[in-house]
């Protein structure tokens, strides 16, 4: 009997470990962190050590720019922190904060920056701020204090492979002449008749939930206040999604894309993979269009170094304020951490961020990553056709900002509702219902 009891007790204690893992991480706050960081503040050469997380997909470029900075800086040594597979920047940061060692400089989305304002430096004194493009700093400004500087700009819309369109439609065909759903369908049909799949839809939750679906929030109005009002209406139930004109407008276009999707037989085929597969389809001419953004340039260029690509706006109804515009976003802001760092580190971090934006190398770095500069003083030449196409829209103001005031599980939840719709497991009413239910649980 005693032996049995002991056995049961041991079994129970082993299990205790499970919940303990979940709960064991709350008290490593500022106190533990600053002790650790003071030890690391200066190395043998007297350089100030800071850690930076630069975000983005271009790991090699990130390492390169840090190496360049370390070579020329006499006072600071920068160490690059990278992201673990499968976690978002914010999740990783939560863990690092609880362990007491967050990066000194980190790259963070606007929505997450706003949650961290009590831990961040006001960076409005940086020299670089004055050159930031209009509309790129408002999202992270609170009561006059600026909590991050934009890293770059990204754009998304319907990307096309110019060569494929030229082969099918004739060499003088201008993709930008496609402005309505009917015209798009017409082109899709001709491409299909030529034996090429017209379009590829990436089935990832972030793509469908954050990039496609947020267009519906921005499409509500020209003004930020009315967009917010619509989203707040979703939270309190006063906005009706299924009867919403803009929702149906965008979903009509989505239906059209689904109809001509390369993956029509099994739309979720690549759901567990990255976007390399669609990049491959577009760059090898197996599809003519791809709903995606310029961050895929890196992937496309590994397969096709010279081809010409560009964007057309997602065709929607004429009354839609987003019509004829591509969507732009600031993927992240460089923030300077102040709650666990020393003053010397903060100073070094500010200098590093400023250098990243102002120096020639830093400006080239933005271009090398396939991104679009967010600063008017960036003189580096854009040779990438994808970026050139995006800039041709932004230069004329034919762009609308992506809606970023979404909760951080928006992509997971709205994205999975969209995946069901894409896979044919739900209809438009069920989609609207699922997304309305999600918003209703948000405070």
């Amino acid at each position, binding site marked *: 009997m005693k032996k*049995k009891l002991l056995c049961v007790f041991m079994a129970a204690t082993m299990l205790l470990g*499970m919940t303990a893992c979940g*709960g*064991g991480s709350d008290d490593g706050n500022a106190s533990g962190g600053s002790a650790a960081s003071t030890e690391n503040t200066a190395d043998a050469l007297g350089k100030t050590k800071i850690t930076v997380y630069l975000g983005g997909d271009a790991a090699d470029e990130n390492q390169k720019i840090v190496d360049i900075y370390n070579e020329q800086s006499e006072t600071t040594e920068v160490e690059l922190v990278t992201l673990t597979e499968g976690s978002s920047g914010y999740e990783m940061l939560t863990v690092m904060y609880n362990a007491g060692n967050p990066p000194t400089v980190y790259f963070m989305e606007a929505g997450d920056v706003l949650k961290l304002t009590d831990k961040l430096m006001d960076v409005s004194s940086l020299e670089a701020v004055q050159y930031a493009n209009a509309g790129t700093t408002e999202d992270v400004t609170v009561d006059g204090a600026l909590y991050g500087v934009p890293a770059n700009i990204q754009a998304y819309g319907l990307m096309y492979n110019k060569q494929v369109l030229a082969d099918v439609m004739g060499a003088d065909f201008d993709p930008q002449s496609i402005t309505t759903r009917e015209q798009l369908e017409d082109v899709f049909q001709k491409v299909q008749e030529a034996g090429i799949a017209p379009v590829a839809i990436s089935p990832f939750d972030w793509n469908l939930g954050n990039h496609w679906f947020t267009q519906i929030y921005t499409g509500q109005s020209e003004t930020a206040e009315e967009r917010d009002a619509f989203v707040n209406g979703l939270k309190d139930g006063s906005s009706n999604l299924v009867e919403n004109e803009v929702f149906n407008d965008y979903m009509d276009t989505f239906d059209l894309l689904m109809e001509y999707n390369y993956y029509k037989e099994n739309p979720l085929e690549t*759901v567990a993979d990255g976007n390399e597969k669609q990049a491959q389809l577009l760059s090898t001419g197996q599809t003519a269009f791809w709903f995606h953004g310029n961050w895929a340039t890196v992937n496309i260029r590994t397969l096709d170094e010279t081809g010409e690509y560009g964007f057309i706006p997602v065709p929607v109804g004429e009354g839609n304020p987003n019509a004829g515009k591509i969507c732009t976003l600031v993927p992240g802001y460089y923030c300077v951490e102040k709650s666990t760092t020393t003053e010397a580190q903060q100073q070094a971090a500010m200098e590093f961020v400023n250098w990243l934006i102002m120096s020639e190398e830093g400006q080239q770095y933005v271009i090398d990553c396939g991104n679009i500069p967010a600063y008017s003083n960036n003189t580096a030449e854009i040779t990438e056709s994808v970026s050139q196409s995006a800039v041709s829209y932004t230069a004329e103001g034919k762009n609308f900002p992506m809606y970023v005031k979404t909760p951080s*599980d928006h992509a997971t939840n709205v994205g999975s509702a969209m995946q069901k719709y894409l896979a044919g497991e739900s209809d438009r009413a069920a989609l609207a219902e699922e997304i309305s239910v999600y918003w209703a649980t948000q405070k």
Partner: protein
Amino acid sequence: MKSSKIKNVVSFLVFAGPAVTVFFLVIILAFINGIQLTFTDWNGLSDTYQYIGFRNYADAFADTAFWTSLLRTFQYVVCVVVFTNIIAFLIAYFLTRGYKGQGFFRVAFFTPNLIGGVILGIVWKFVFSEVFVQLGRKYEIGIFQSNWLSSPDTAFLALVVVAVWQLAGYLMLIYMAGIISVPKDVLEAAKLDGAVGFRGIRHIVLPLIMPSITIATFMSVKTAFMAYDVNLSLTNGGPFQSTELVAMRVYNKAFQAEQYGVGQTEALILFVIVAVISIIQVSITKKREVEA
């Protein structure tokens, strides 16, 4: 009398003291702290939080996605426990009969267990979405023509396959230890009495390795309930959250949805459920143990 008591205490402290201290600091304290956090509205990052009574518990019980994923996890646990134990026992049984090359096969079956879960997930993702699909299309094998990770049922199956593949080798070791320690004379006597083949396994071997079965079942139940790493790197809960097992659900609730209190509460509910199940399982299998 008195001095021997002191001696006892001292020797207990010397031998068990460090382990008990570490256990208390790392497990018990964290556990208590975790329970405390279930009564707060902490978001996982801020320096301050407020006590909100039992609201997290109400939220957790109302969170249908949590219960769906718990149900899915039960299905997963049943599949994994049944298949790993049967397969592990069969492998162990055949690899202890003195066949040629059994040492090689023992190593081969155990190796998957040495690969970390995340890497395992990435490797199998490649197998499911590239290797199987290519083979399926080339040789027109129906079940492999589309990516297993692209539909809910097959993605679930993929998770089970990978878990069984990984865990079976480990349980094989436990079963092998049990089978080897069955006395030869008992087996020979049983053989003379006509207990050969399946009857021998059913009436002689299985009852005698009951302690191994207890441990192996417990290990597999625990591992299956806590599955996270393969789940993350193989399917990441997709497509449309249909393969989100409960550990991942809890993590996402706490860190992605930033409702740390609710996530912690769900972890606690999970703990109670798994503890009850494990205690029942251990006490049932314990009862069936016999001495040779």
